[in-house]
């Protein structure tokens, strides 16, 4: 059976991501789940926006797109509309997909485009140095919230589940078997599916918020999140799982 390494451009390793960053975990798991699902350069494509996660598309051993900031979704939707034979996977960050691309998230999900979205949610803009994002939790220190963020974090689960048909999964880079399950179910879902993955940014978020190591950040997810195997209604804060309606 095909595995992660079969879908990764080995000649491009190592990636540009910082040591300890969660994106690498997600990339590796996504490649593995895609390979296991039989996806390859003939039947799939990966589309990214801009930012740290935006670089993920380029590491896949298949045709891939690195678009402008926030625009992965409409590009992916167009490809999916014209080429139903291709599995279209979007891999991008929280700033890209929920802030500058927030309007596209509302509408591509509303139109139930046949796109699987892997949202790497590290609650910060990493590539540009560590500014606050719509996902940044209250109290977090970032370059643009030096005394702590005050705004409400965006409710991604609420946006996706407001659609009659929906697939929303939440996982973390600590809960790898659960993450794999979420990714596999999302890929198999006919229509718009989004996996919201809590992921650590040790270099930016971690350092500004006085976390000592990447391991400390990732282990914190173990404390903060519990798997809810069969959520009734929506996932509560601190729960990870899959919320779907066909």
């Amino acid at each position, binding site marked *: 059976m095909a595995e992660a390494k079969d879908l990764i451009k080995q000649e491009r390793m190592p990636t540009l991501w910082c040591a300890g960053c969660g994106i690498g975990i997600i990339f590796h798991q996504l490649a593995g789940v895609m390979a296991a699902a039989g996806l390859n350069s003939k039947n*799939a494509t990966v589309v990214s926006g801009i930012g740290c996660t935006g670089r993920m598309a380029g590491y896949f051993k298949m045709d891939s*797109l690195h678009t402008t900031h926030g625009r992965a979704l409409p*590009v992916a939707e*167009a490809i999916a509309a*014209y080429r139903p034979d291709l599995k279209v996977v979007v891999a991008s960050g929280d700033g890209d997909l929920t802030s500058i691309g927030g309007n596209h998230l509302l509408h591509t999900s509303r139109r139930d485009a046949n796109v699987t979205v892997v949202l790497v949610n590290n609650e910060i803009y990493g590539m540009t140095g560590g500014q606050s994002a719509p996902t940044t939790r209250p109290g977090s220190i970032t370059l643009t919230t030096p005394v702590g963020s005050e705004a409400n974090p965006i409710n991604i689960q609420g946006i996706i589940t407001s659609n009659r048909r929906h697939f929303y999964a939440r996982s973390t880079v600590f809960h790898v078997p659960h993450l794999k399950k979420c990714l596999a179910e999302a890929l198999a879902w006919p229509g718009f599916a989004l996996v919201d993955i809590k992921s650590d940014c040790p270099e930016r978020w971690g350092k500004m918020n006085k976390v000592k190591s990447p391991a400390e950040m990732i282990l914190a997810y173990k404390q903060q999140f519990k798997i809810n195997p069969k959520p009734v209604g929506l996932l509560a804060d601190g729960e990870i799982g899959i919320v779907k309606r066909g």
Partner: protein
Amino acid sequence: MKRLISGNEATFLGARKAGASFYAGYPITPSNEIMEYAAKYAAGHKDFRFLQMEDEIASAVAIIGGSLAGAKSFTATSGPGFSLMQESVGLAYMMSVPTVFIDVQRVGPSTGMPTYPAQGDILQASHGSHGDYQALVLAPNSVEECYRYAVESFNLAEEAQSPVIFLTDGFVGHLEEVIDPDQIEVSAPAKRLREPLGTGCRHFTGLLADKNGIPRTADSKLYQDWYWSRKKQILTAAEKYKFFEYVPNKKSDTLLISFGISSRLCAELQKDCGYFRPIRLYPILENELKAAAKDYKKIVVVEANDGQYAGEIERVLKREVRRIALLGGEIKLTPILKRLESISVK
């Protein structure tokens, strides 16, 4: 069959004739009919896909996705929407993605006069995106030309592997003339040069990248090599698309230069003045303009904006260029005649 056809319908028919099979757009006056024809056509033809997007930003990137997916792709908009699309024009240029952006111009800035025609997007069409790039812009002046040059726009986009701006206006777009598209001889649809997605391991990126698609964002030499070869690629492709009309007038000391809807007025003055009408606005027809202009003492550019193209022509000819600005959607001969009188009095 001969029938009354609007410029916007003819533009859509031209796109189809060129083999276009993907449209994404967002409603805006006076371009809406193009979108409506696309929606209606898609409803009856499985090989043509239509997407109504949430805004012009999404529309512009969607046609980039559509084009890479394998479809000749286009969108239509007007000034404010075209502004929102500019980022993607740069992406299409950088990623070498053939796409056609139709701008049915109206009076701006901002919401301005949505139902009145203008030619105020000349510089937006040529320099509206960021960074240095060589724009490709065609401007028809009749319903028949909307059809004919829509075909050429798609062909040029394929040959140059680049975005092409098809610049009409609210007047030409809504003008109805009797034509028979089946009897209009147009160029054969250009072949696609790139295999669609799902056939390789290519990486398409807006970053500076080497031939393998690997980002090289700190390589100035690579940028310079890329820049000049891309520019050359565009200019070479455009060689075959030097569309213009020149009617000399040996008795006159004045050359009128005009394009699009304004040129329909100026054509009435051919007995009094020389008449030069660029159809390919960009790359500017420098040699053709210079050759025509040398026989005249006065150069007058008539356009529905405050001298946008006149400034370009002045730069090319390196001599004084007089301007006649048709503003506020008033596309009439009287103000042109008045201004011409005052010019000759001087």
